[in-house]
């Protein structure tokens, strides 16, 4: 079962690379970082899925104690892989390379009402957070012990809810409705705070019904706390950069309008704005400075 999922993940990576190659061959721009990110996400997913709960199959990590190993897999599946998948923009790539029929179906799917609800930042944050609390603060984790099929389902759920949350926060693919930066930042903040609280509480008390060694719990919970921080900061930087870049575009539009109006008044020819993204030339700056009250 796990093998089938891993093959599917590998097939997705191959499909992505093939589509990116086709796109670039026909002359469209598609940064190389995106296929690299997607394949890294695929590799992390396979690693996280094939990891037995008591450690990763990679030789240097084999000695990880059970809870820490579980947490490493959880971080890879629920946070790192989703971030890598989402920044690779697979839906946008598919929409650009699929034949017309499937493309219409995919567009209808991502623009549908259920998709809009799932990608509403507060909902996605809640789904992601509640899953973690149910997993670690109810006897779920104890019941999952030695049931590989159920464990696989939980892993896939973590991966999917992570992708949903990351996509809701970054909103990089074409969607029905893109939530404002404030709402997305608030959802990210709330989810990160809850993640931190859960991680710290696991330091003292493990999931009910399990008996991990105290040292194992301490390492695992700190891995969850600081690992969550790293991915959270990465998301915050990407979100803030989106805000900064869109502000720069608005400023340039205003500068162009202003320049056009000024040129009409003086009768001189308008030249296109050739400033670097996000930068305003000194001659434009005084006009953009807000009036002091």
């Amino acid at each position, binding site marked *: 079962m796990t093998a089938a999922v891993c093959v599917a993940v590998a097939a997705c990576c191959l499909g992505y690379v093939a589509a990116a190659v086709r796109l670039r061959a026909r002359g469209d721009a598609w940064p190389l970082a995106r296929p690299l990110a997607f394949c890294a996400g695929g590799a992390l997913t396979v690693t996280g899925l094939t990891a037995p709960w008591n450690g990763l199959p990679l030789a240097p990590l084999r000695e990880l104690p059970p809870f820490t190993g579980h947490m490493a897999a959880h971080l890879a599946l629920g946070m790192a892989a989703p971030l890598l998948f989402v920044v690779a923009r697979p839906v946008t790539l598919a929409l650009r390379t699929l034949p017309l029929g499937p493309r219409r179906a995919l567009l209808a799917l991502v623009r549908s009402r259920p998709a809009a609800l799932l990608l509403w930042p507060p909902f996605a944050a809640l789904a992601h957070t509640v899953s973690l609390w149910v997993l670690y603060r109810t006897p779920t984790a104890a019941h999952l012990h030695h049931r590989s099929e159920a464990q696989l389902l939980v892993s896939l759920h973590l991966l999917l809810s992570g992708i949903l949350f990351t996509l809701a926060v970054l909103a990089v693919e074409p969607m029905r409705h893109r939530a404002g930066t404030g709402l997305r930042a608030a959802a990210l903040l709330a989810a990160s705070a809850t993640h931190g609280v859960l991680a*710290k509480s696991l330091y003292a008390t493990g999931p009910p019904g399990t008996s991990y060694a105290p040292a194992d719990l301490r390492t695992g919970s*700190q891995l969850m706390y600081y690992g969550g921080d790293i991915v959270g900061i990465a998301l915050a930087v990407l979100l803030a950069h989106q805000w900064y870049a869109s502000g720069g575009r608005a400023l340039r539009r205003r500068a162009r309008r202003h320049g056009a109006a000024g040129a009409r008044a003086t009768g001189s020819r308008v030249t296109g704005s050739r400033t670097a993204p996000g930068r305003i030339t000194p001659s434009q700056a005084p006009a953009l400075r807000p009036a002091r009250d």
Partner: protein
Amino acid sequence: MTGHGRSRLGGAFAGVGLAAFVDEVVFHQLLHWHHFYDKASSEAGLVSDGIFHAFGWAAMVAGVFLFADLRRRGSLVKPAWWSGFCLGLGGFQLYDGTFQHKALELHQIRYDVDLTPYDWTWNSVAVLFLLVGVVLLVRTRRRR
């Protein structure tokens, strides 16, 4: 919001972010004075810590990008930015030093030592930053 208000807000984010950053890097990771978890930690303490830890690094990111935005718009008012910075830094440190360390007993500044000088230094530095922030705030207000 005016250049003054935006500068003050950006400074406040940067101040909170820097206070949280120094707390985490210097006192948790380098000196190992602060402990990740204290047996006396209450539930309320954990919730407060989670919120302020997440808010701390989010403020750091927001502070950097707001500063860049103010610069490119040419609307950065430096004294207002510094007043916000001192208020944010002092406010966060005072909250951490009184409410989180003492009232919620999340963790102490250092273990196995007499805490009195540590607590007084910690909170005095916080109050000092707050005072500088207030003085700058009053001065920038008066000048307008």
